Structures are given as C-alpha cells and as structure tokens.
C-alpha cells in the first residue's frame, strides 16, 4: 500500500498588512520590536482556512435561521471578523483562558466546540453548549477555558483580567499562561475597563486586553463615541499594539508579540484589531441607517480575510483554486448537516427553568396553586 508522506513545512514570509502595525510605548517596560514576518506551517494554515470558512458558513446559516424565526432573541454575527479567533488560536493554547462579549459563535467552535452546539443553543435545545439556557450570547466551554459569551457590554473585561491574576500570583516573573479579554470599540468607553487596566498594571497580571475595533458601536461610529479612536493607546500607561484584524497572519504575529510580552512577566498589554463587520450589529439592526452598502462592499473587496488567505495560499503554492473550491463545498456540506441535526434535536426540558440558579438549591415553584406543572 502506498501513501504519500505529508511534510509539515514551516515557512516564513514578510508581513505587509493593509493596516500596518503600530506601537504605543508608554516607556514603563521594555518592549519587543513590532513583527515584520510571519511563520506558518502549510498544513495548519489549511486548517485555518477551513475554520474561517466554517465560521462564515455557520454565521450565514444563523442569519437565515433568524430570518425564518427559528432563532428568537438576539443574534450577533461575526461575519468579516473571522481572522481574529483563527489567527489568535495559532498562538494561544487551551490553557489560556479567554472571555468575550456577545459576538461569540466563532469563538465557541474555535475553542473546540461544534456548529451543532452553537445552532442547538440558539434554537433553545438540550444539546446546546449551555443546555439551551443561554442562547446566542452565552456560549461557554469550561473544559477548554472559554469563559463565554457575555451580554452586558464591557462587563467581561474586569472578569478577564481576574482570570489571569492566578498566573501572576503563581509565577510572577514567568507566568505560565495569559488570559485574553475581548471588548469592542463601543465598550472601550466603559469605566470598568479602566479599573481593570489599573489593577492589571499594578499587579503585573498577564492579560491581553483585546479590542476588536469593527468601527461601529452598533449605530454609532467610533469617531462619534470616542475622543481617542486609537484604542491601542487607550491603555495609557499600558503598552499597546495595533494589528490588521482582517489579515490572519498579522493577527497571529500580533498575538504572538502580545503573549510573549505577558509571559515575560512584563504585565498587561492592549491589542487592538482593526476589523470590520459586514452585517449589522445584531439581527435587529438595519445598518442602512449609519453606513452605505458601498462602504461595506469596498472593505469586502479590499480586505476580506478569507479572500486574503486564499490569494496567499495560491501565491505560495500551498493550495490550488480547485482544492479551495472543494474545501468550500465540503465545509458547506458539513455545517449544513450540523444545522439539520440541531433543528431535529430535542428541546431543553422544562425543569431547566428552575435549575442551576444556586448550587444545592431547594427550589419551590410558587404559583397560586402551589405547583407549576406535573413533572411525571
């Protein structure tokens, strides 16, 4: 029997992202130079493309399902920003805790979840990642240190700094892991973020404050909400780096820069991703009120993360266009099947209404007659 030996080839390329790296150096700790090149391995990068396609297909199906009223509630899509989780996870490992806001579907599958768990959660089924009790905004994976999925804007940032505190205490000069806490350009004006940054700097907590700047806080452009729109500078006394969030390799190297900074015991760092979302803030947001279709199309043509990676792979000779088309179709089929599986999965049982409120609960369902329903 013959089988071809796959060579995992590691290559290095020069990095020339559309949005160049920028550094904010407050002069308190020594900083490494900005990344100029990216290393990738030919097999892993194919997996990266597959993951980005998977996220995009999953989000597109979520959009359709929402419009068909199969998903109720709120649904915030990640389309356009796929390079961020995929690029970061090339550098992070699953012992590095992460916490994000409500735009979390992509993160769930990048952290070891499946599209079935995402769809089932949004449909309110028992097979969902949070037993169908959380919905679109509350996806978690305790095994792989994915702390979710949070609805209140900005509230997750101090929580994320707290996740990394343990690493600082256990090993102050060379922490074992970093935590990454995400927030958007809209959330960047929440006071609690600055409280978290201050404590993180004082205690040299190895946390990456990752700002996903997709240019709009729902309907308000960043210029109208923030006096300083260079979010990587908003850490003030905390160093910051600006990264092209639509270029997966730039994301990867920017994350590597940030992680190495934290692991050297130098304290927190701000990482701003210059990114863009093609859909509205959520399914209830007709984004025609604050931007034009041509603006979205322009970014899509020039900087789309999936198109960039595809062009890169062809020019590097890693994949042919035919192979990529095949991959596209394969991923599409795979995710479509997960959707069908989720649609047919059983609903969350009614007992889940009053479980998991507190541990060790004795819950009495009060009604005028004393019982809610007969649980046979």
């Amino acid at each position: 029997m013959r089988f071809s030996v796959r060579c995992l080839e590691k290559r290095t390329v020069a990095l020339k992202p559309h949005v160049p790296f920028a550094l904010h150096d407050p002069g308190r700790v020594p900083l490494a130079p900005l990344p100029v090149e990216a290393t990738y391995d030919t097999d892993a990068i194919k997996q990266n493309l597959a993951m980005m396609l998977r996220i995009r297909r999953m989000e597109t199906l979520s959009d359709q399902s929402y419009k068909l009223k199969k998903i109720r509630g709120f649904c915030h899509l990640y389309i356009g920003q796929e390079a961020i989780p995929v690029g970061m996870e090339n550098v992070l490992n699953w012992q590095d805790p992460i916490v994000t806001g409500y735009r979390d579907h992509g993160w769930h599958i990048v952290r070891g979840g499946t599209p079935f768990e995402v769809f089932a959660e949004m449909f309110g089924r028992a097979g969902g990642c949070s037993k169908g009790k959380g919905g679109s905004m509350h996806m978690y994976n305790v095994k792989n240190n994915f702390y979710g999925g949070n609805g209140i804007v900005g509230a997750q940032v101090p929580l994320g700094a707290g996740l990394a505190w343990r690493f600082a205490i256990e090993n102050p000069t060379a922490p074992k892991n970093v935590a990454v806490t995400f927030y958007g350009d809209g959330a960047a004006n929440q006071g609690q973020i600055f409280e978290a940054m201050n404590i993180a700097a004082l205690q040299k907590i190895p946390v990456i404050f990752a700002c996903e700047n997709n240019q709009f806080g729902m309907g308000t452009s960043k210029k109208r909400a923030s006096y300083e729109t260079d979010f990587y500078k908003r850490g003030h006394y905390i160093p910051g780096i600006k990264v092209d969030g639509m270029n997966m390799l730039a994301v990867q190297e920017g994350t590597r820069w940030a992680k190495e900074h934290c692991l050297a015991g130098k304290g927190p760092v701000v990482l701003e991703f210059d990114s863009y979302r093609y859909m509205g803030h959520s399914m209830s947001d007709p984004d025609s009120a604050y931007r034009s279709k041509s603006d979205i199309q322009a970014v899509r043509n020039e900087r789309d993360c999936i198109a960039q990676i595809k062009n890169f792979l062809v020019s590097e000779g890693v994949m042919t266009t035919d192979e990529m088309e095949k991959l596209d179709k394969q991923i599409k089929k795979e995710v479509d099947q997960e959707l069908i599986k989720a649609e047919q999965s059983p609903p969350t049982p009614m007992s889940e209404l009053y479980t998991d409120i507190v541990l060790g609960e004795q819950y009495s369902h009060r009604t005028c007659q004393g019982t809610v329903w007969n649980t046979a």
Partner: protein
Amino acid sequence: MISKFSRVFSKVDKKFFATYRTAKDIPANLEREKMNLFTAVNNALDITLQTDSKALLFGEDVKFGGVFRCSLGLNEKYGNDRVFNTPLCEQGIAAFGIGLASTGVTAVAEIQFADYIFPAFDQLVNEAAKYRYRSGNQFNCGSLTIRTPCGAVGHGAHYHSQSPEAYFAHTPGLKVVIPRDPVQCKGLLLAAIRDKNPVIFFEPKALYRGAEDMVPKADYELELHVADVVKEGTDVTLVAWGAQMRVISEAAAMAEKDGISCEVIDLQTLYPYDLDTLCQSVNKTGRCIISHEAPITCGLGAELTAAIQEKCFLRLEAPIQRICGYDTPFPLVHEPIYLPDKFKVYEGIKKAVKF
C-alpha cells in the same frame, strides 16, 4: 444669564398645557391622532423640546432615532446641541444627567434597556435620590428624567427583558412611573419630565408597537401618584402596571364569564404609589391580586400586599395573592412558562373567590 433662564422658565410655568387626573378625565372633544407607544413617547419628547428650551435628550444611539424609534426625527428638528448620542457608558450617562439637572437643565437621559441600568445604579441611588436631602434643599436634580424600556418582549432572555422597578421603588428620593398605553404614556411622560424630582420612567418595550390608541395631539399631563381604576367591579381587585395590565384585563374578562366581577387598577406611579385608591377598592371587594413580571420575592407586589393588609385587614375575605414571575433569572426559551399569564391570574381569581 440667570434672568434669561428665569424668563424661559416662567414660559413653561404659564401652564399652556392641561393636567388631568386620569385618562378618563381627558375631554372627548380634543383632536386625536392614532399613535402607538413609541410614537406617543416621540410626541411627548417633541413637545418637551419645543416648550422647554432648556430640555436636552441624550443616550446611546438616540440621534438616528433610537433602537425603538422613540427619538425619530428629533435630532433633525432640534439639532446636535439638544439631541445627541453618548458613548456606551450608563454610569456616565446617569451621572452627567444628574450634573446637568443640578444646574437647572431639563435632562432626559435614555438608558437603552432597563437591563443595562445597573452600572448607573450607584449614581441614581446614592447621588440622584439623595441630593436634595443631604444638601438641605440647597441643591437638587429634580429636572432629571431617566427613560428606559423594560419588560418581557417574547424573546429578550436574560438581558433584554428585566423589570427592575423594585430596586428603584425601594429608594426614597426617586419616583418610578410606568404607563400602560399610548394615552397614559404621553401624559405621564410629560408629567414625569416636568416633575421637580428625579423620575425613572419605565416604558414596556412589548407595547412600543403593540399598543395603539387615539392620543390627543395637545400638550397634556396626567397626574402622578394616582392609580387609575380602569374597570370597576365588586368581587376582586386586580392590581398591575405596564404591559401586565393587558394580562389582568384578559383574566378579568375570563372571570366575567363565570360571573365574577373584577375591579382592574393600574398603579401607574409605582413609587410613591396611591395607596388610597387601592385600599378604597379592596375595602369594597375584600379580595386582592397583585401581578407583575418581576420575580415574586421582594417584588413590588410584596410591598403592596403588606401595605394593603395593614389598612384593610378586617375587610379582607381572602389572603392577598401575588401572581408574578418565578424566582429565577429571566429565562430564554422557558419565558412562556415563567411569565404570569392570564391563566395563572384567572386561577388566582377563582382561588380568591372560593376561599
């Protein structure tokens, strides 16, 4: 500077608007227009900005009209100086509102969803509520009004469905008001804005499009601290507010078929509330049911129950019941089970009558 303001102030004080005790007292001959709840809010805000040159409207995304269209067209009409967006910071919005109000500006601040009001909780409870008291009436932020959509909407889940009125009704120094339909909404909102105390005005978001009525086009106010007897009856008193009014009205209609006559009361101002109207009714009927979406333990129903039984003990024929949401976080898919619907209220009515 001061004289200019006082001249403007006296213009508003001239009272070219009428104040009615309840919606029933609005004369029938007033010219009316079909409005739903968000149009009524929009109309009230328009009138405020027109008649009070010191009025400002601000909050997240209010400039393009707001997520519920309550401020539609107002920025175009009154300009960026009077209708403007704030960054995403509820604590900042409330605190700035308090600051503005303490200089005499009529600050109408919007908190995009009542679920997001908690970062502002410290400012509202510790600053806004206590300003007049701790300064011996030298300062106050009476011209502050916080408007915020609240309540279940069918798919809001944990963070777009909460009814936090109880937290604020527990804070002396604040007033809490909630309308049940467009006619009430316009009158109560204008009264709340013009009231010389900080008011939190909850707007049931399910009714923004869902509730429609012929609303008077004129400038009018409805009195605060007045509970509205929507329907008179003799056997059971039903008390609720906001979107829950529809639920108890439907339950009352179901009970009517069984020959039970319910008196349906809308509390309207939740704090300080009109205990006299409630007691007058319960003294007549001898039975009372209070219903609200918020969790039952320590909800406003608990306060009303205690206050009513204290005054009406000897006239009660049955224990006062509270038919409310369960003591769980507001659920996602289990919302229909969680909510106190008309069937639960109907059961309560039957239980009260059979006691």
